[in-house]
């Protein structure tokens, strides 16, 4: 009998089976369920239809206002109220009020709520992000979340796994974002439909957790059900630090894939041949090296979102922006992913660097990433963004154009006023360590 992948092992435990195989239908026990201010109100309405009084386990539920938070209008204030009142009513302690939270996909790992080996179900498509910890995590809609709130379980089809083996040492300015944009370009927007993308290989030893969260964050942009990285020392150190900081010591499970596990496909990526990438409008799969892309003029640069607004990202952007100004015609906006990141960036003086460069620095929110508020694009405007989707109308008007990049490219673009490679700035690339610090 062939071995199992990490994904199969996690789902076997969660479903009470010795072994599961791709294609098996299982009922999996959920370790953490998440909803946000857009999806939770719908889930709560569905949940009420069941006539059940209490959610299955309030300690395993996280509710995070992020998308239209701070409330942008009365309607979104009401969505926030629905979620807040439900959290209080149900005794859900992992409700993160404004000023104490941020974007869920960065917040839950930071809070030691998302952990290795867990099954995490989030009513948000980028819930695949938690896979960077070695968890099985996937995005669902509100009704699926409602069923989980009621029963603590979810039906799943065990996915095939596709393996991505990263070799070599990343070039200057190349981080997790560039790896995943190039992989999506390779496999296509539905190239990994229904599958688990397993990221592995020696090059991951050079990637911080911040970079790995970006790798798994964009699994959905390849149509995948989940993305996953087998835990190593970098993962375990991160988890330990997070657990100690937040005094949360939930058990977790460290799995590895068996050497004879079966994969639907294996792709090898030589990261030493990669340079910073850009995905042209209006599909993430339209990725190419920045150096070969047309130098389009931009109206807005957005450094934010669950994809690239972590400490590593902000440090890289500040490295370029320190002592420089954004082009007078460019609106530069920086939105740290969580309050904890905001505070750390403040302590390190990065927020000051951004403000001096002429950027707005805002409170954590999804904001412009989904065209929600705080920087919605107008007709024909061009935006270079560190987020994950450049679909038609995603960030505002349907004629606006969005280019997806890493934070170094975004910062360089802000300075020069047109899509730019960070080398054009004439500052040496920072060296990064595996905790996302510049050394």
């Amino acid at each position, binding site marked *: 009998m062939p071995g199992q992948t990490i994904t199969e092992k996690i789902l076997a435990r969660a479903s009470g089976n010795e072994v599961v*195989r791709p294609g098996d239908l299982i009922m999996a026990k959920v370790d953490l369920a998440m909803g946000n201010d857009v999806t939770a109100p*719908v889930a709560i309405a569905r949940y009420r239809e069941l006539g059940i009084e209490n959610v299955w386990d309030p300690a395993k539920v996280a509710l995070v206002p992020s998308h239209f938070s701070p409330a942008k209008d009365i309607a979104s204030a009401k969505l926030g109220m629905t979620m807040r009142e439900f959290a209080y009513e149900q005794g859900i302690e992992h409700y993160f009020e404004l000023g104490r939270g941020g974007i869920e996909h960065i917040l839950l790992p930071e809070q030691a709520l998302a952990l290795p080996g867990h099954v995490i179900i989030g009513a948000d*498509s980028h819930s695949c992000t938690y896979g960077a910890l070695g968890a099985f995590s996937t995005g*669902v*809609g509100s*009704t699926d979340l409602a069923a989980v709130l009621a029963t603590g379980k979810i039906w799943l089809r065990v996915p095939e796994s596709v393996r991505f083996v990263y070799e070599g040492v990343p070039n200057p300015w190349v981080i997790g974002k560039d790896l995943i944009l190039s992989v999506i370009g390779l496999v296509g927007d539905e190239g990994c439909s*229904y599958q688990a993308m397993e990221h592995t290989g020696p090059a991951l030893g050079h990637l911080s957790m911040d970079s790995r969260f970006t790798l798994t964050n964009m699994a959905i942009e390849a149509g995948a059900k989940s993305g996953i990285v087998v835990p190593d020392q970098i993962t375990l150190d991160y988890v330990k630090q997070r657990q100690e900081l937040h005094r949360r010591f939930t058990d977790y499970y460290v799995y590895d894939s068996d050497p004879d596990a079966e994969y639907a496909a294996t792709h090898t990526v030589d990261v030493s041949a990669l340079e910073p990438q850009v995905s042209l409008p209006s599909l993430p799969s339209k990725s190419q090296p920045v150096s070969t892309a047309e130098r389009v003029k931009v109206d807005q640069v957005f450094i934010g979102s669950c994809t690239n607004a972590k400490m590593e990202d902000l440090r890289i952007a500040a490295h370029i922006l320190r002592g420089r100004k954004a082009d007078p015609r460019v609106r530069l906006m920086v939105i740290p992913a969580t309050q904890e990141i905001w505070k750390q960036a403040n302590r390190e003086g990065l927020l000051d660097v951004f403000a001096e460069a002429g950027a707005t620095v805002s409170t954590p929110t999804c904001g412009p990433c989904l065209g929600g508020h705080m920087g919605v694009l107008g007709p024909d405007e061009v935006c270079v963004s560190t987020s994950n989707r450049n679909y*038609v*109308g995603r960030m505002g008007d349907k004629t606006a154009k969005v280019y997806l990049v890493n934070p170094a490219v975004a910062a360089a673009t802000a300075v020069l006023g047109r899509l730019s490679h960070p080398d054009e700035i004439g500052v040496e690339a920072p060296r990064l360590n595996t905790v996302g610090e510049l050394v």
Partner: protein
Amino acid sequence: MTDVIEGPAHVYGDNVDTDVIIPARYLTTIDPAELAAHCLEDLDPDFVKRCRFGDVIVAGRNFGSGSSREHAPIAIKASGIACIVAESFARIFYRNAINVGLPIVECEGITDGAESGQVFRVDLAAGVVENVARGRSHAATPLPSFMKEILDAGGLMPWVKRSLDAGGEVSVGVSADEPVQADWRLD
């Protein structure tokens, strides 16, 4: 749920994502009628005007990709669309549609020669989709029986409620006489 759906089609291409089905600017409501009023407006501004109760959507690959917003299938269902037939679906959208009780059928080759206005006939039980205008039938990917059960119940919530009311465990009920199909790839 009726097993046979017949109606004129609205035909679209590949990668119809949930941002164009219902843009974020309308996500501050959860009212189906309000959502339906803006369904697909960034892709096809006339859809709302043209769409009649019982129409179908026929589309290319990766329908419903992107955001997990259930507002997307809710908006489509509330527009009166009786069924979506596509070459392939993004998985979250697929689950969401079944969960809200919107029939959805994966059918390879269905966009060949498909044009808006042509009548399509979808036999959910038989797993056959026919482009009536062209007289061409296509085999659809069959739904596993428990997903049919969910659709028949009117969505996931009534289905879960039924199991809970019966005091039973909620389960996908895979039985020995319905072996799991390893090539079935719809979640």
